[in-house]
C-alpha cells in the first residue's frame, strides 16, 4: 500500500533524469566556448541574412563579423606592438620544439584563411550590393571584411619564422576531418587533383612583366611589410566578373583554376603580392624582396577566390568576384585592396 509522501519508482526515475539532464546542460555551458562559437555562427547568419536581403537594403543589414586577433608567442611576449590596447586577443604559446612551432604557425594561418572563406559564404553570396549607390556615390570598389589578424611576437626567433611555408602546408594537409586538403576545399572538391600545377616561375614572370595597357594585370603600387609582424586575412568582393577574365587568361600557365574557383600557386623569391579587384579586371600589388625571416613569412602570397554567380534576393542571378587573401596589416596595404571595410574591428 502506497503511503502519502512515498516516492514511486517511476517518480524516482523522473527525478534522477531531471537532475542529470540539468547537469548535462550546465556542463555544456561551462565547458564549451560558446562565446567564440556564437561569434562565428552570428557572422555566418548575418552573411546569409544580408545576401538574401534586397539589394537596396543590403547596406542596412549589419554584418556581425568581428575581426579575430591571434597572437603567436614564445610564452613571454604578448604581441604588444600589434595588439596593445585591444581586447579579445587570443594568445597561443608555440611549442619549444622548432618543427612543431613551425607546423602550428602554418596550421593556424591556413585555418584563419579557410575560416574566413567559409564564414563569408565562400564567395557565393553577394554581400555589398548597393553600398556605394546607397550613399549617392557613382563608383564601385571592392567591399571587404577583415576576418582575422595573426601576429607573431617579436620574441619568436627568425629561425622558426623563416621555415614557415603556409602554401605548402595547404597543399599537403587536410582541413579538419573533411578528408580534403585546403587546396581541394578552396576549389570545392577532390576534382582539384586532376588539374595541372602551374609553373610558378612562368607565372611569377608573367605577373611582374604584365602589360599595363591591357589592364589585365596592371601593377598598382607596392605591398609594404610592417614592423609589427602581423598579417591580416581579408575577404574582398566586387560585383563584376571582369577580374575573372584576367584569371582565365592566367590559367594556362598561371593560377590554379578549377571551375569558377582559383588559388594562387607558390610564388618564388619571397616577394609578397596582393590581388586587387577592380571593375576593369585584376591588378596586382607587389612587395619588395623579403630580406629577413619574418619578411619571408609575409612573402608567402596566399590568395584564393571564386568568380561567378552569387546568391542574392533578385530573381535574376548576379555575378561577382571574391578573394580571400593574406596581406601584411597596414592601413596602406589593406586600403589598397579594399574600397571599404565592413564588420567590427
Amino acid at each position, binding site marked *: 500500500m502506497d503511503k502519502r509522501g512515498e516516492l514511486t519508482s517511476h517518480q524516482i526515475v523522473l527525478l534522477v533524469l531531471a537532475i542529470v539532464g540539468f547537469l548535462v546542460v550546465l556542463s555544456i555551458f561551462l565547458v564549451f566556448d560558446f562565446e567564440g562559437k*556564437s561569434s562565428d555562427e552570428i557572422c555566418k547568419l548575418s552573411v546569409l541574412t544580408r545576401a538574401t536581403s534586397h539589394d537596396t537594403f543590403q547596406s542596412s543589414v549589419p554584418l556581425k563579423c568581428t*575581426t579575430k586577433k591571434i597572437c603567436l608567442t614564445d610564452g613571454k611576449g604578448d604581441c604588444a606592438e600589434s595588439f596593445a590596447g*585591444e581586447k579579445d586577443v587570443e594568445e597561443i604559446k608555440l611549442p619549444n620544439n622548432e618543427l612543431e612551432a613551425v607546423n602550428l604557425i602554418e596550421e593556424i594561418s591556413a585555418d584563419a584563411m579557410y575560416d574566413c572563406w567559409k564564414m563569408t559564404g565562400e564567395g557565393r553570396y553577394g554581400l555589398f550590393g548597393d553600398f556605394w549607390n546607397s550613399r549617392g556615390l557613382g563608383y564601385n570598389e571592392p567591399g571587404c571584411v577583415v576576418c582575422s589578424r595573426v601576429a607573431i611576437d617579436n620574441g619568436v626567433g627568425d629561425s622558426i619564422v623563416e621555415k614557415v611555408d603556409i602554401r605548402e602546408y595547404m597543399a599537403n594537409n587536410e582541413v579538419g576531418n573533411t578528408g580534403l586538403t585546403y587546396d581541394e576545399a578552396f576549389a570545392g572538391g577532390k576534382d582539384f587533383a586532376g588539374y595541372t600545377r602551374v609553373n610558378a616561375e612562368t607565372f611569377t614572370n608573367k605577373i611582374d612583366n604584365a602589360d599595363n595597357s591591357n589592364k589585365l594585370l596592371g601593377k598598382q603600387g607596392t605591398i609594404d611589410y610592417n614592423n609589427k609582424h602581423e598579417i591580416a586575412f581579408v575577404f574582398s568582393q566586387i560585383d563584376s566578373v571582369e577580374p575573372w577574365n584576367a584569371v582565365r587568361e592566367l590559367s594556362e600557365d598561371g593560377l590554379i583554376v578549377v571551375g569558377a574557383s582559383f588559388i594562387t600557386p607558390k610564388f618564388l623569391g619571397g616577394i609578397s603580392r596582393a590581388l586587387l579587384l577592380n571593375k576593369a579586371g585584376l591588378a596586382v600589388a607587389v612587395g619588395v624582396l623579403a630580406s629577413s625571416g619574418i619578411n619571408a613569412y609575409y612573402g608567402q602570397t596566399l590568395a584564393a577566390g571564386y568568380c561567378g554567380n552569387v546568391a542574392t534576393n533578385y530573381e535574376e542571378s548576379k555575378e561577382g568576384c571574391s578573394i580571400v587573401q593574406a596581406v601584411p596589416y597596414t592601413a596602406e596595404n589593406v586600403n589598397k585592396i579594399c574600397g571599404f571595410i*565592413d564588420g*567590427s*574591428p
Partner: protein
Amino acid sequence: MNKNGDVTITNFLTIVIAVVGIVLLVFAGVRIYNIAVHQETEDAKNLLNVIDEKISLVDEGVNTSITVQGISGDNIWYLCGYDKSWDSRPGKCLLENCICICPNWGSESCQEEGFCRMVNYDNVDIKTVTSIDQQRIVALYEDDRYFESVSFCVPLPPELRELEVEKGEDSLKIMYYDETDG
C-alpha cells in the same frame, strides 16, 4: 489521497524543468540581442576605448603611429579633441579636456550621440591635414606656398586609418595625413 490544488511530485518536476528551460531561453535571447543590435554604437564606443588605451601606451616625446579601423554603419564618425581653447565643448567633458568620438562633426553631435573621455593634457589637438594639388589652388593664391588644408577632427570612415600620435608632458597631438587629392 491527493486533493485538488496539491502539487504532486510530477507537477513539481514539470514546473522545475519548465522554469529552467525558460531561464535558458531568456539568457540565450538576451545574449543574442546584445550582440545583434546597436552594433555601430558599440563599435564606436569600443574604438574610443582602443584609441584611449593605445594613446596611454605611447611614450612621451616619441612620435608613434597607430592603426585603427573606422566604423561601418550609417554615419561617418569623427575623432575630435577639445581643450580649453574651444568656446563650445561637449557637456559630457564636464569642463575638462577630452577626446570624443561622434557620429557627426561638431560638439553638439558629440554631446547628443557621441562618447567622450577626459584626458590629462592642457592642450589637445586632433586634426586632419589634407594635401592639395598645388595646381588646383594656384588660381586662388598668388603664390603656391599653401599646399595643405587643415581641419579639426579626424573622420573615421569604414577603412583603416593610420594616426600619428605625439605626446608631450602636457600636450596630446593626433594627426591624420590625408594623401588623397583634396
